[in-house]
Structure formats: C-alpha cells, structure tokens
C-alpha cells in the first residue's frame, strides 16, 4: 500500500468514525423526538391561518393562498408520518404521541377545509352571489385558530417550546 493510499484509508476511517460518533450524539428517539413534528405542525397551521387572513383582506390571490394551504397540508402529512413512526418507550410517551396524533388529525382536517374554501371561486369576501367560499373562510379561520390553540396547549404541557 502506497503512502497516499494509507493516508486516504486513514482519512476515510476517521470520517466514518466521526459520522458514527455524531449519529450517536444526535437526537435520541425519546419524547424530544416529538418536538420536530410538533413544531412542523404548529408552523403549518399558523401559516395557513396567515394565508386565510391575507385572503380575507383581499391581499393574497386565490392561487397563492390555495398553494400555501396545499403546501401546509403536505407538511402536515410529513409531520404525521414522523409521529406515526415514533416508537414510544414509556406509557407517558405513548399517551403524548396519541394526543398529538389526535390534534394532528384535527389540524389536517382544518387545513383541508381551508384549502377547499380558498380554492372556491368566491373565496374572497364579497365575491359573487354564491356565498360558499366567503361564508366558509371566516369559519375555517376559526377552525384553524382552535386547532392552533389545542396544539400549543399540548406543546406547553409536554414542555415543547
């Protein structure tokens, strides 16, 4: 083995060792792992709420607001997937996970409602005779706010900031 190959092998071994060490130091699968999905969900529902607000003020276009709600729905799906793969070790973790899943389901439902209301042809306030969209938006906003409050309450209870 030439000197340069030895050096290369040593460098690779060091890199693998460092990678292993850092992976070991990375977040362990504990209640702390719930922090990621919880924060992702909180961010998604707050974003959708802001998008609905901006649409109600006729600042955002229907396309932009609908795209935002749709993006947040995908984000919720990803957060839910992470939560479902979380292996709870204790009864407390299991209970927290279940409560969170229930709230995630509520958030997903309200995001779905938000997307549909925003995509409705008359989603802007005072937009046409069919009141489907314009009536739905304030109701959907209320739904989103309630879901946000529920999640924030649970996060505070679980010590997730």
């Amino acid at each position, binding site marked *: 083995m030439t000197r340069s190959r030895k050096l290369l092998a040593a460098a690779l071994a060091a890199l693998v060792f460092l990678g292993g060490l*850092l992976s070991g130091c990375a977040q362990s699968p504990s209640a702390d792992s719930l922090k990621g999905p919880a924060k992702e969900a909180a961010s998604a529902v707050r974003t959708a709420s802001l998008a609905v607000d901006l649409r109600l003020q006729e600042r955002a276009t229907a*396309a932009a607001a609908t795209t935002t709600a749709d993006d947040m729905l995908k984000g919720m799906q990803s957060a839910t997937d992470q939560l479902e793969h979380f292996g709870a070790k204790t009864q407390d973790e299991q209970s927290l996970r279940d409560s969170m899943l229930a709230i995630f389901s509520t958030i997903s439902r309200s995001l779905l409602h938000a997307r549909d209301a925003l995509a409705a042809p008359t989603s802007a306030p005072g937009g046409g005779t069919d009141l489907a969209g314009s009536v739905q938006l304030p109701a959907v906003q209320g739904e989103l706010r309630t879901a946000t409050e529920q999640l924030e309450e649970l996060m505070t209870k679980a010590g997730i900031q």
Partner: protein
Amino acid sequence: MKRLLGVALGILTAIGGFVDIGDLVTNAVVGSRFGLSLAWVVLVGVVGICLFANMSGRVAAVSGRATFEVIRERMGARAGLANLAASFLINLMTVTAEIGGIALALQLASGVSYMLWVPFALIAVWLVIWRVKFSIMENVAGLVGLSLVVFAVALFLLKPDWGSLASQALHPSVPSEEGPGTYWYYAIALFGAAMTPYEVFFFSSGAVEERWKVKDLVQSRINVLLGFPLGGFLSLSIAACAAVVLLPAGISVTTLSQVALPVIQAGGQLALAALLLGVVAATFGAALETTLSSGYTLAQFFGWSWGKFRRPAEAARFHVAMIVVLLAGVAVLTTGVDPILVTEYSVVFSAIALPLTYLPILIVANDPQYMGKHVNGRAVNIVAFIYLVIILVASVAAIPLMIATGAGA
C-alpha cells in the same frame, strides 16, 4: 455615454442575477428561525464572492482560459477529474433546484401543480440556451430579476422595529429555541448560498464568451464590487422580511409559498405580482447559468469545443451535455422530491466543494506564467488567504454538522 450605460447595465444585471433559489430559500429559512443574527454571514459571503469572481474574471481575461481549463492544467487530469465530478454533481443539484424553483413560482401564480410546470420550464430553458444570444440572455434575466427589490420595499412597508433588527444583526447570538449546531449549520448554508461555484464557472466562462481583454477588467470590477453587494442587500431584505413577519408568528419556512407571505402582507396583490416576476426571472436566469456551467465544466475539462458564441453544430458535445443535464434534473424532480429540500442540500454541498475551485484559482491568480503583471497584489492575497481558511473550515465542518443537526432540523 454608451460606456456609462454599459456599466449601469452590468451593475443592474449583477444585482438582479445575484439572487437565486438558494438565496431565496436559505435567507427566508434563516430569517424565520434566527432573525437577523446570521446577517454577518451574508456580509462574509458577499465579500467572498466578490473576491472569487474578481480573481476568476481576471484569470479568464488575462490568460484567455476559463476556470475548468485552468483547473485541469494546474491540478492534472486525476485531481481535476475528482474536482469535475464534485462540481458537476453540485451543478446538477442546483439545476434541479432552479427548475423546481421556476415551477414552484408558476404554481404560486396559477394554482396549477408545479409538476405540470416542470416540462414547460425545461423546454423554455433549453430554447433560450439554444437560440438566444449570451448577452441578451444574461441582461434580460438579470434586469427582470431586479423585481425582487420588492422584498426591500416590503420591509419598509412592514414598518419594522429597526432598532431590534439592527440589534439582532450587530449582536448576533443563538436564539433560545435553536442549538449552536443548527446555528452554525445554517451559517454554512448561507455562506454556500452566497458563494455557489456555478456563479464562478459562469462568470469566468462568460468572460471568455464575451472575449474580455485586460482593458475590460475595470468594468467587470465595478459590476462585481457594486452589483454583488447590492445583491447581498436583497438577500438581507429577504431574511429581514421573514424575521419581521414569520419569526414572531412561529412560522419556520419550508416552502416557497411561505417566503411570499411577508411580501403579500406588506404590499398585497401588486407586490405579489412583482415578487412572482422576480422569482421566475431569478430562478430562470440561474437555471440558464447552472445549465451552461454544467456544459462549460465538462467541455473545458475534456477539451471539447464550447461556447454560445459558436453555432450549436460547432459545439455539439457541449450542447448535448447541457440537454442531458436538463433532462437529468427534470428526471430527479419527477420522482416527487421536494425542490426546496434539494435547494437546501445544494447550498450546503456548494460550501463543501468550494475549496476545490477556489484553491486552483487562487494559485493561478498568483502565477506570473499565466498572469504576467496581473498577479494578485499583497492586499488581495491577505484577504484571499483568510478566505481560504474560512472556506476550508466551512467545508470540513459541513458534513459533521449536517449529521449532528439532522440537516438543520
């Protein structure tokens, strides 16, 4: 008068062309999570890209050789090939991210799924590369990209607490909700977003395309030294908008639609229209640059005939390489991978691979055989060596930080 107009056009193009999907996303992510506490990195990145572009432009103008010709000559075929592989992969990631960025902006404008816009973006990019003159292509994309000034306008309309923003920028600290690892990971991402290697490949190859001579160096220096810092100011405006609206609302940016929210809040639908125009122009311009850069790096390394100043039939392999890169980027997008995620990784990998291109340019810029009397001066060399250290540290720290923080999660 004509010369003055040329200088003004160059500066405006440099400002508009500075921001791409990497800058848009990374600055908004950082603003929404860290406020302006990483603003100093934008400053470091802007000085770095000015230095790097200046050296590579000078090397191209004086020696008549673009970056990858120089790399192959100075580093030899084997080391050059490793360099090519790394640079080409990052270019490919960036092409993918930029095409995804065009499609996402069009989705935001139309409500039609971005996946349906991807083929449209591919054809549009290819047609422009195939048919449009280099100077027109560069200037139009850069000038329309200036619409992104809407971020700066939005920031004023939002009436922020300027004292608080200044305090965040001038007294940087890690926010309580974030760890130091994440802070430094995003510092590297922001640095990589400002100093993407493709910008330098494009800049130096563009110098050869436009047949720069030593006398053109003054204008190029003005373009870089005024245009890039003003482009950096745009980057800071993006981060500041996110810091003012999204951070207090507890929103972390993960999508392009979230990047637009502060602008919509400040300026309504008109501001949104300007934003969308700017994002499409910026990502489209960057898609052109990265696609061309992929062709440039391959052709320059293998000694193929290259350049848009040649007819496609005279540079067939160069053009075929670009078509293959575009198709590969689109193939990646059709797997359903999130373009924003690709963007986030591409800026970090840009930082990782940066020494591979920076070091050869620094060596050649100091070589009298290539540069004659135009070698780096003492002051430039001091700054250049400080940057070499910064670039090496960022490159070495990026992967461990990526693993430790779960890619900044």
